[in-house]
């Protein structure tokens, strides 16, 4: 059974439709890239997948033992966080908050896992550092470690490399790729078609033209129309 299934979704705000009749599914171990122009409804789709926004029509189901609240989410940074006094450790462990329910404190096991996730993201030496003093790439890794705390099996990344320089971007992609190899399902929202084609196994394109399928089908020219230039560049490179 698929981990995440979206059936005939129609999304929008206040009666205005942005996406209509969208269906796709994500299986365990997939790496799905959601691409599309600005305003095509990528972030609305993401909020719907996370359960923050309800669809106008259609439904989203999770399976394979995954609950909707167990999707690890890497949000884009907000203004508030830019000058928030918080240590790396405090932020990472707050990923477990959803599992705490009314329990006021974190367990030993959760603390241990938080440390493990920090090691995985190579930020364990920054534990005590203040989040706002870190570089953009380090901050992203902190938030990714937090997302790992919130999930066992699925990550949803919202523009994970926005605002990062090329070297850090490559590092970030390889880290995500590593997590994918370790068995975590990845859904990534991105502007970056080139990276999508390099790392993803599946592509969902929304906007005027809708496409969902494997990367190979996407490349094979079913969808060459607006992206021929990019796919061409990929072949040359």
């Amino acid at each position, binding site marked *: 059974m698929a981990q995440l299934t979206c059936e005939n979704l129609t999304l929008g705000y206040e009666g205005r439709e942005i996406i209509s009749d969208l269906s796709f599914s994500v299986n365990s171990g997939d790496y799905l890239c959601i691409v599309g122009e600005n305003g095509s409804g990528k972030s609305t789709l993401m909020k719907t997948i996370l359960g923050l926004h309800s669809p106008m029509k259609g439904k989203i189901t999770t399976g394979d033992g995954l609950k909707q609240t167990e999707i690890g989410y890497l949000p884009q940074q*907000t203004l508030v966080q830019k000058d928030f006094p918080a*240590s790396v450790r405090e932020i990472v462990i*707050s990923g477990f908050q959803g599992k705490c329910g009314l329990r006021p404190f974190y367990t030993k096991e959760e603390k241990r896992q938080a440390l493990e996730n920090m090691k995985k993201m190579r930020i364990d030496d920054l534990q005590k550092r203040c989040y706002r003093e870190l570089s953009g790439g380090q901050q992203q890794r902190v938030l990714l470690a937090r997302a790992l705390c919130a999930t066992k099996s699925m990550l949803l990344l919202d523009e994970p490399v926005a605002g990062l320089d090329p070297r850090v971007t490559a590092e970030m992609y390889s880290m995500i790729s590593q997590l994918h190899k370790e068995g975590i399902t990845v859904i990534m929202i991105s502007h970056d078609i080139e990276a999508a084609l390099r790392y993803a196994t599946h592509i969902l394109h929304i906007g005027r033209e809708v496409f969902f399928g494997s990367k190979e089908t996407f490349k094979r020219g079913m969808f060459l129309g607006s992206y021929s230039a990019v796919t061409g560049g990929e072949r040359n490179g």
Partner: protein
Amino acid sequence: MAEVFSKLADYFQNVPAVRYAFIVGVLIALCSSLLGVTLVLRRFSFIGDGLSHVAFGAMAVAAVVGLTDNMLLVMPVTVICAVLLLASGKNTKIKGDASVAMISVGALAIGYLLMNKFPIRGGSGNISGDVCSTLFGSTSILSLTPLDVWVTVILSLLVLVMFILFYHKIFAVTFDETFARATGTKAGLYNLIIAVIIAVVIVLAMNVVGSLLISALIIFPALSAMRVFKSFKSVTVCAACVSVCCACTGIIISIIDGTPVGSTIVAVDIAVFAVFWLIGLIKGGVRK
């Protein structure tokens, strides 16, 4: 100097009002500074101001109607307004700062209007005196009854316990509400709890500093702590310590010098903020 201390010790032993003032002042300072950290970070620094004006308005209504215990009206009205302002979220038509400003000045105006239009039963007959003491917190902290003290002690202990129990949740919701919601934290519920706690603290604090200066108690310790410390925990602990020390110093100065309690405490808070700001600059850790 020794003279001053012996005078203070004398007050402490023989005047219960001074003891009460210290107990109430310290507890209020502690509670308000704890909440201040999350309020400042949420860009809600002015909520203290807004809500205290609501409490002022409600107090005026209570006085006009002739309620013997105006807490019964003031507390629920303030709690409701706090919930409306904080828990309604970001999807309201009027944005956060505008709605706080609106409620704040609205309640202030209506309250003053009512106090002038209808003479207060059992009041001193001196309207501007009454208004001034509600706004700036008169010397009334020195005329607290044992009942006032007990109510404050119980409510502030409650606030403290709630804060400790919900500490990690408050952090999660303040740092990133969307993430918290997406991963199954009941952000709405915790926002509601925070709103109620804030309303309670503000109504309590009106006795000490009056409604115009409550914001200072809430934001100054938090801002001072943020100049120097860098993790949420250390900022919270430091804000609490700073706030308690400032409250004590302020009360002592006002007893010795006969200055108004509320504004003295706030003046001490400002001085401490300046010191922390300098320390921050020297450490070079925090810009701005």
